[in-house]
């Protein structure tokens, strides 16, 4: 069973992202499951970063830590990441020689064959492809595709660079590299969480995004801006996150589906806007791509530290939606659902991701686009005689129109208001308006998808997890079961409102989370009254992987 982990390391600016992406794409092109994630510092040049690529026969979209193949582009990164190399792993290196080392003089090859050091990364990508035992044709396809926009000269030089690296490494591989990955006739998607969210927003009919750049959320508006002509979407870089969320609310009031995206610090600035959306009953979708905090924290690493913050975001009491997708496909569908439900219930919806989901590339077979629901939840102005934006009714969902749609006037107010949207100090009416808004929660709860269960029927120990850690948690369950442990998992991706759900009794619960205080555990204890035995917590900025979870379960 093929399951290879490649670690590419180097300083920022050296191009490890290019190498990593090319070999992930090449493995995907060859018909294999590729999963890649990055661990990088918050700087543009220097430091020491890594790009990890897991290539497998079966879908395995979760991180591995130990390296089968390791390459470092500088000495500092070599020292830092070399301990990850397995005893029987292969080192690919510029100078070093020895057993289980493939020596490839990247710089010399780039200089002598192409006359330019710039091509050293493509030489390295060629060498790594050869070490992995992937056929040259797959790499060729990827090089043609990736560099096609840069002109024929660049394409042909990169092809030469890749071919030279490939040839050189393949000759040295004889009798050393154990892997052979024959081409398989399988087509996959290789896509990151941010890209899937951007496309999901498009599928969910989003026409407006305003955002302020903040790692790791920036990729969403960048993607939509790049394709704005094709998607006919308006994109704006706001002066700050307060402006961003208010712009999205303004656009939504004016009649289109709108969103914004940020990370914890920027989201904190948006919180008054979330409350505004709650009071004015204006739909808006907000992506919160988490990173380790408090404050600026670790800007480029991952964490799930904002669950309770997102759930409690916004002063006052009003209905709200919080989803935390587990992978890019789930992210795609969740954001479509968020747009639909936000409009149907006229509420703010928050999509919680993290740097791990936002930046990592996952392999997916199919997006199941036929599951996308395309419908509008706006009222029909022709069916209304006397329009009241905040009409009191049984469901709590008042008819929503937009200004300029018809002769009806659409009046919204952040103050407590009457049915027409005018400021009120009528305290009886205040109570009715509060109840009207809160009634929507109970209807919304009925639409929430219950958590995903894995192997819980005979389990004595059950992991509780949420969001992007799904695959790592499920992989840990599989491995622990192979060792005879009766372990199961319950994984949440829809967290507010929480669905009605019957938890298995008489089992030990462990929350598995990328935070220090077990936030999901606290939430489930307060909502369902279950008690958690222990938290398997990770808060060093790296993603949860199955080895870490197993270690945490077995050794505490």
């Amino acid at each position, binding site marked *: 069973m093929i399951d290879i982990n490649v670690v590419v390391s180097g300083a920022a600016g050296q191009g490890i992202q290019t190498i990593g992406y090319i070999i992930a794409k090449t493995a995907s092109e060859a018909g294999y499951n590729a999963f890649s994630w990055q661990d990088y510092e918050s700087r543009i040049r220097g430091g020491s970063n890594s790009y990890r690529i897991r290539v497998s026969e079966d879908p395995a979209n979760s991180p591995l830590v130990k390296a089968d193949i390791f390459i470092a582009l500088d000495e500092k990164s070599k020292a830092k990441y070399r301990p990850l190399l397995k005893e029987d792993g292969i080192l690919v290196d510029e100078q070093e020689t020895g057993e289980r080392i493939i020596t490839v003089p990247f710089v010399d090859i780039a200089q002598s064959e192409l006359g330019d050091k710039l091509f050293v990364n493509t030489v390295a990508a060629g060498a790594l492809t050869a070490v992995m035992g992937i056929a040259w044709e797959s790499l060729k396809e990827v090089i043609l595709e990736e560099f096609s926009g840069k002109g024929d000269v660049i394409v042909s030089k990169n092809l030469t660079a890749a071919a030279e690296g490939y040839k050189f490494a393949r000759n040295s591989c004889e009798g050393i590299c154990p892997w052979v990955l024959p081409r398989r006739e399988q087509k996959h998607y290789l896509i990151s969480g941010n890209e899937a969210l951007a496309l999901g927003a498009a599928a969910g009919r989003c026409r407006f995004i305003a955002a302020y750049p903040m790692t790791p959320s920036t990729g969403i508006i960048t993607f939509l801006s790049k394709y704005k002509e094709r998607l006919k979407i308006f994109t704006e870089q706001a002066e700050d996150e*307060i402006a961003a969320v208010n712009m999205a609310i*303004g656009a939504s009031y004016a009649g289109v589906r709108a969103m914004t995206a940020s990370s914890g610090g920027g989201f904190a600035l948006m919180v008054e806007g979330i409350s505004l959306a709650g009071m004015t009953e204006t739909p808006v979708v907000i992506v919160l791509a988490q990173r380790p905090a408090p404050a600026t924290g670790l800007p480029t690493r991952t964490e799930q530290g904002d669950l309770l913050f997102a759930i409690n975001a916004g002063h006052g009491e009003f209905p709200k939606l919080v989803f935390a997708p587990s992978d890019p496909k789930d992210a795609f569908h969740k954001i479509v659902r968020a747009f639909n439900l936000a409009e149907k219930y006229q509420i703010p919806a928050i999509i919680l991701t993290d740097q791990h989901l936002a930046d990592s590339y996952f392999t997916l077979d199919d997006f199941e686009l036929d599951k996308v629901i395309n419908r509008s939840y706006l009222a029909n102005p022709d069916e209304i005689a006397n329009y009241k934006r905040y009409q009191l009714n049984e469901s709590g969902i008042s008819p929503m129109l937009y200004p300029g749609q018809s002769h009806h006037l659409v009046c919204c107010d952040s103050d407590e208001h009457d049915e027409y949207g005018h400021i009120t100090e009528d305290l009886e009416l205040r109570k009715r308006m509060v109840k009207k808004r809160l009634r929507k929660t109970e209807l919304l709860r009925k639409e929430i998808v219950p958590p995903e269960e894995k192997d819980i029927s005979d389990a004595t120990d059950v992991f509780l997890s949420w969001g992007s850690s799904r695959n790592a948690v499920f992989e840990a369950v599989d491995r622990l079961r192979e060792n005879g442990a009766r372990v199961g998992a319950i994984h949440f991706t829809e967290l507010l409102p929480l669905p009605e759900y019957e938890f298995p009794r008489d089992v030990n619960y462990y929350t598995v989370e990328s935070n220090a205080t077990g936030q999901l555990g606290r939430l489930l204890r307060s909502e369902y009254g279950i008690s958690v035995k222990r938290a398997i917590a990770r808060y060093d900025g790296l993603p949860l992987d199955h080895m870490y979870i197993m270690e945490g379960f077995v050794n505490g």
Partner: protein
Amino acid sequence: MVEIEDYQSDAENQWCPGCPNFGILRAIKSALVALARKPEEICMVSGIGQAAKLPHYLRCNFFNGLHGRALPIAVAINVVNPKLTTIVVTGDGDCYGEGGNHFLHTIRRNPNITLIVHNNQIYGLTKGQASPTTDLRAKTRLQFEGVELEPLRPLATALLHGCPFVARGYAGDIKGLSDLFVEAMRFKGFSYVDVIQPCITWGTHTVSWYKERIYKLPPDYDLHDKEEALKKACEWGDRIPIGVFYRDDRPKMGFGDQFRDKIFDGRLTDLGFRKQQTIIEMLDIFR
């Protein structure tokens, strides 16, 4: 044909009796009559403060949002539906204090909207604290020893950052104010009118203090001369000019123009659903 009664609102007015805000409201209504804008063609946007309650007293579409945040709401409405006449009504605390950053960047965006700032140089609704435009050394209900901060010169700020229409009016001169509003609302681009509105409850100056100092820019004043406009925008104290300080009639890129030129010219609400084929093709980029 639109008449002033068409804008009659049923909402109870919460302003102090005799407040110059009533004059501003009348001036806006008569400007809208002059421009024949129907209530459903108008969208007023406001934040928080006494001025920001104005949309409740003029029958039209409105979004009364959060303190300081009217401008980002308004620019988004304008880009989604350029056909609406979008007017922001705000005060000195709302626009220059809490919303100061949005004021700066909205000027840079140049959206086709009108900004009307009720400038009474004081916080009214919170009962008499200094605003960004309160004069130096003026004593207030919070700055007991007098204001220590230099007042903001918002018209100069707007001029420096390329605002193409900069004017100041006086709430006591309803006819003159209405004419200013008509000119501002007709202007294509960001039109900004700061309105002197003496606060009769908490103000640091009396109505007569203003009356003695206010003068209209003379007929021979060149409103295309930015340097002269800057000088006038800094003139405050013994004499206070009102009128159109600056108007740039040259074509200027406006917020959303690139999008309308290249991608879609119209109301974004008319775009409807995307074809599934578009999403399929976009996803194929990743295959």
